[in-house]
């Protein structure tokens, strides 16, 4: 029997059509078009484009960048979450807002700030030049910009969860003689491992896919400072559409795998991921 709060059959059908249409038009079609364009000249053309030396070095640079940025933000996230959830201290809410700050900064501005720090006309520019250290238009700048845009991901997953969990278990362990590190490894880590994985997953997806911030600091030197997203831009602007979409489809695959793992984690370990999540 229909409850009074139920929508009519017509309204249901209409809203489901609108939803499927809207998501299909704005999300599914763009995703599909990446793969169809990559395969426009057959799969071997796409694979050839991926095998180009410039593509290979872009893939390597992206992996290297993520391999540096993600672990650093992981350590920071754990440290910040331990600090915020296990102790009471003044200025905590200010600290929490500052941790979230990079999310509200435009990607281009995130790159710009490092150019202003380390660029030729920047604060440290002359000193760096005298000591022959390159940050902007080199790997360190790319890594720094990537760390900036992915800064809050892990911290943000862990803080609400660890705050909810409190500190009773850790205090018990320490009182019984465990060291701080043992306590973290044996008591805290098992409680937060799925949330940690969730944060790392999102952090990694953004680190490998970041475009705006990295674009400002990279200098677009082919084979040297082009990450995968930047290589997509270079190929696209060169009218090498198959190549551009072939590299793009690798990134799209990464996005799909990320979404699948994210859904799995949300579904399987809902209670062990931060309380702020739905389900």
């Amino acid at each position: 029997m229909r409850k009074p709060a139920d929508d009519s059959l017509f309204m249901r059908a209409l809203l489901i059509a609108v939803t499927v249409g809207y998501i299909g038009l704005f999300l599914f079609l763009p995703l599909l078009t990446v793969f169809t364009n990559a395969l426009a000249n057959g799969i071997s053309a796409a694979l050839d484009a991926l095998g180009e030396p410039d593509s290979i070095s872009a893939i390597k640079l992206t992996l290297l960048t993520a391999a540096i940025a993600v672990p650093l933000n992981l350590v920071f996230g754990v440290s910040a979450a331990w600090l915020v959830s296990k102790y009471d201290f003044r200025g905590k809410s200010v600290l929490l807002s500052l941790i979230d700050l990079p999310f509200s900064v435009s990607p281009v501005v995130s790159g710009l700030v490092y150019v202003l720090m380390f660029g030729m006309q920047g604060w440290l520019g002359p000193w760096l030049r005298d000591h022959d250290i390159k940050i902007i238009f080199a790997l360190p700048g790319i890594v720094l910009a990537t760390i900036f845009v992915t800064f809050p991901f892990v911290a943000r997953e862990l803080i609400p969860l660890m705050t909810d969990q409190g500190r009773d278990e850790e205090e018990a362990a320490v009182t019984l003689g465990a060291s701080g590190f043992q306590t973290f490894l044996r008591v805290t880590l098992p409680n937060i491992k799925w949330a940690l994985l969730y944060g790392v997953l999102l952090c990694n997806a953004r680190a490998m896919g970041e475009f705006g911030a990295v674009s400002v600091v990279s200098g677009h030197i082919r084979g040297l400072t082009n990450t995968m997203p930047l290589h997509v831009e270079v190929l696209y602007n060169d009218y090498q559409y198959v190549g551009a979409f072939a590299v793009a489809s690798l990134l799209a695959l990464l996005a799909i795998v990320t979404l699948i793992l994210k859904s799995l984690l949300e579904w399987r370990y809902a209670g062990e991921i931060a309380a702020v999540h739905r389900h």
Partner: protein
Amino acid sequence: MRSVAISSPFARLRNPSVLPGFGLTLGFTLFYLSAIVLLPLAALLLKPWALGWSGFVAAITDERVMAALKLSFGGAAIAAIVNAVFGTLVAWTLVRYRFPGKRFVDALVDLPFALPTAVAGIALSALYAQNGWLGEPLSLFGIKVAYTPAGVIVALIFIGLPFVVRTLQPVIADMSEDAEEAAATLGATRFQTLRRVVLPSLAPALVTGTGLAFARAVGEYGSVIFIAGNLPMKSEIAPLLIIIKLQQYDYEGAAAIGLVMLAASFCIILLLNLFQSLLSARR
């Protein structure tokens, strides 16, 4: 028992705890935060003033800069409103109804969070180009999306879509159907119930989600530049102008635009927080 924390100079700041690591985590967290976020942002805060106040104002009120800021803010506002309307319908459908493929549609909502913006950019550009799947049929009606401000808005709709849906979904799921049933029992039509009972309880989350989508869209770069065409005064967004100024070695001019955008995003976040605390104070 030895404790690093209690012997640390910050001990006065806090209530004592037996857990070790306060000094270590505080030190590392503050160091990392300062090095990665605060110092670089300070560089941005200070740089434009090399121009002096009048130079700063001149840099910002330049015709081309104003046009770019208007497009970034205006386009973001239109995209946020479109997402507010359709995002609400999507969230409602995904929570309340069952249909085949629902899980898939639901997972797809997060795509803009996971798909690199450059990939979204070239995909949208290919879709709406004159010979694209959507560009070709649209051109039959004389509608041009790619390389116009409309293209900018399409990209900003893409990037802002998850914010409204993901903010509303938990609120709709938590909403009890009792109030709706009561309204219906008392003779309200379904439309009246939705307008008078459902919509007001969704309003706070809707404002937050729309605000977040707006804030994200204002600064968006990667998904926009491929489809925008980037014609100065017409379809050139503010973040792109920052990059153009940097390429011309106009660091102060770039920093001036960057500072305005940073200030704007702070204001949006601040207003949203203020709005939330006003709401919770009223309850």
